[in-house]
C-alpha cells in the first residue's frame, strides 16, 4: 500500500519536481508511471524510497511515512535506476549484489544465501565472480535488479528499465517484473515506451509538469496519453479506431 498526500517538491535551483500529488496504490499492483520528459516521473519514484523527502505533504508505504523511518523505507522499497553503470558499486557481480544486504547488517551466511538466490532469479549465477563492467548492457540491467531482489523489498520501482535493451533484453526484464508481481510485490515502472509493458499493467499514473493528471486503468487513459507526451501503443490506437467505426 503506497499513499501520497499533497506532495510538493522543488529542487534547489527552483525547478518544480512535484506539485500537489496525491494518490494511492494497493499492494500487489503493477503500475506504469508515464509522462513527457521532465514531467516528474523520476522525482516521484525517488520520493517512494525516501531519496527525496517531500517539502510539503507526506509519502507513506505500508503505513510508514518516509520522513519517520528512512532505513525501514529503503529496505521496503527497492529502486532500479535508469543508468545501470551509476548503481553498480561492487568489484565483482556477487559483491555488488551483497551491498544491500550488508547495509541491512544481516549475518554473512544469510547474505550469501540471498546473493545466490537473487543471482539465480536473474540467471547470472555463472557470472558471479566476473567484473561487472565487462557485462553486456542487458546483463548489467539484470545485475541491478538482482541487487534489489537481495534486499527482499515489498515494493520495487524501475526507472526506464527497457532503455537501450534489445528484444531479448526487454523480454528478460519484463519476465523479472512479472515474477515480482506474481510474488505479490507492488511494482512501479516508468517508461516512454508503454507498449512494452501495457498488456500487464493494472494502473497508469500520468504526470505532466510535476502534477498528477490522470490515474486509473490503462483502458481509460491510453486513448489520451499522446496529449501528455506518451506514445499510444499501436494496438490501443487501432482499438480506438475500430470502436469509432463500430459506433
Amino acid at each position, binding site marked *: 500500500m503506497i499513499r501520497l498526500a499533497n506532495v510538493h517538491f522543488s529542487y534547489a535551483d527552483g525547478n518544480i519536481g512535484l506539485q500537489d500529488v496525491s494518490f494511492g496504490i494497493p499492494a500487489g499492483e503493477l503500475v506504469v508511471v508515464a509522462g513527457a520528459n521532465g514531467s516528474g516521473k523520476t522525482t516521484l519514484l525517488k520520493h517512494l524510497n525516501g531519496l527525496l523527502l517531500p517539502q510539503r505533504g507526506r509519502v507513506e508505504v505500508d503505513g510508514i511515512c518516509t520522513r519517520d523511518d528512512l532505513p525501514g523505507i529503503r529496505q521496503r522499497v527497492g529502486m532500479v535506476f535508469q543508468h545501470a553503470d551509476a548503481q*553498480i558499486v561492487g568489484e565483482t557481480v556477487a559483491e555488488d549484489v551483497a551491498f544491500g544486504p550488508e547495509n541491512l547488517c544481516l549475518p554473512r551466511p544469510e547474505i550469501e544465501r540471498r546473493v545466490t538466490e537473487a543471482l539465480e532469479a536473474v540467471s547470472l549465477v555463472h557470472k558471479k565472480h566476473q567484473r561487472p563492467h565487462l557485462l553486456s548492457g542487458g546483463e548489467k540491467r539484470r545485475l541491478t535488479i538482482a*541487487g534489489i531482489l537481495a534486499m527482499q523489498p515489498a515494493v520495487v520501482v524501475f526507472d526506464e528499465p527497457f532503455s537501450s535493451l534489445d528484444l531479448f533484453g526487454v523480454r528478460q526484464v519484463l519476465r523479472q517484473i512479472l515474477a515480482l508481481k506474481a510474488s505479490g510485490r507492488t511494482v512501479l515502472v516508468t517508461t516512454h515506451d508503454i507498449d512494452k509493458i501495457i498488456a500487464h499493467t493494472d494502473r497508469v499514473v500520468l504526470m505532466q509538469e510535476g502534477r498528477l493528471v490522470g490515474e486509473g486503468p490503462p483502458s481509460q487513459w491510453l486513448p489520451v496519453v499522446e496529449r501528455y507526451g506518451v506514445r499510444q501503443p499501436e494496438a490501443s490506437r487501432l482499438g480506438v479506431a475500430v470502436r469509432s467505426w463500430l459506433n
Partner: protein
Amino acid sequence: MAELSVFGYRHGRSPAHRLDVRCKLIILLVLTAAVVAAPPVAMGPISLGIILLWASLRLPLRRLGREIRLFLVFLMAVFIVRALSTPGVSVVDWHGLSVSREGLYQGAVVAWRLMMVLALGLVFVTTTRPSHLKAAVQWLLRPVPFVHAPKAATMVGLIVRFIPVLHQQVRETRSALAARGGGRQRLRLGQIRYLVFPTMRRVVLAADQLALAMLARGYQETRTEPDLHATAADGLALAAAAAVLAATLMI
C-alpha cells in the same frame, strides 16, 4: 558553488561584459594587485568601486550567498585565527584565549581583502564568455615557450565543461548507494570505495567517449582562432585601472 552555476558566464550587456577579454584580464590583475597592496584607508573607495561593478551585473545575491557559504566559513576561520593569534591589547579574555583589538582589526582587513579578490574574480568569470576565456588563455600563453597555447586553451575549456558533469555523476552514484541502504548515515569509511570506484570508472569512460566525439567532429590542433578586438573604451578602462593601482601605491 558546488554546482558552479552562479560561477561561470552569465549572458549580459553590462560594461564589464563588453570589454575585450585581454584588457579585462589585465585589469583584473591590476585591480587584484591594488586590493592586495592597498593600505586600509584606500580599501574604502576601492571596495565601493567593486560593489558598484557588482551591482551592475545583477547577480542573484541570495543564491550566490548560498553557493559561496563554504568560502564564507573560510573567511570566518581566517578572521578568527587572526583575531586570536595577533598580539596586542586584549579585548576579550576567555580561558587563556585572548582576542586582541589589533587581531580583530587585522582579521577584518584580511578577510575583507580576500572577499574583494574573490569578488573581482567573480566579475571576470561571470562576464566572460568561455570562448573568450579560452581566447585569453591562448593569447596569454602564446609567448610562453614549450607550451602549446591552443591546447592549453582547450584544456581549460574542458575543465569548465567537466566540473558540473562530475558533480552530477557523484550525485547519481550517491543516490544509488542510498537507495540500497548505504549513503549518508551508513556510508562507513570502508564503503567510500563504493563511491569512488564506480564514479571514477564512469567518468573515465565518459572522458573516452568525449575524446571520440571530438575526433568525430574533426578535432584539429590548428583551428579557427578566436577573434578579439579591442576598442578605445578598452584602453580607457585599462588606463583607469592603472590609475587606481598607482593611486593606491602612492598613498
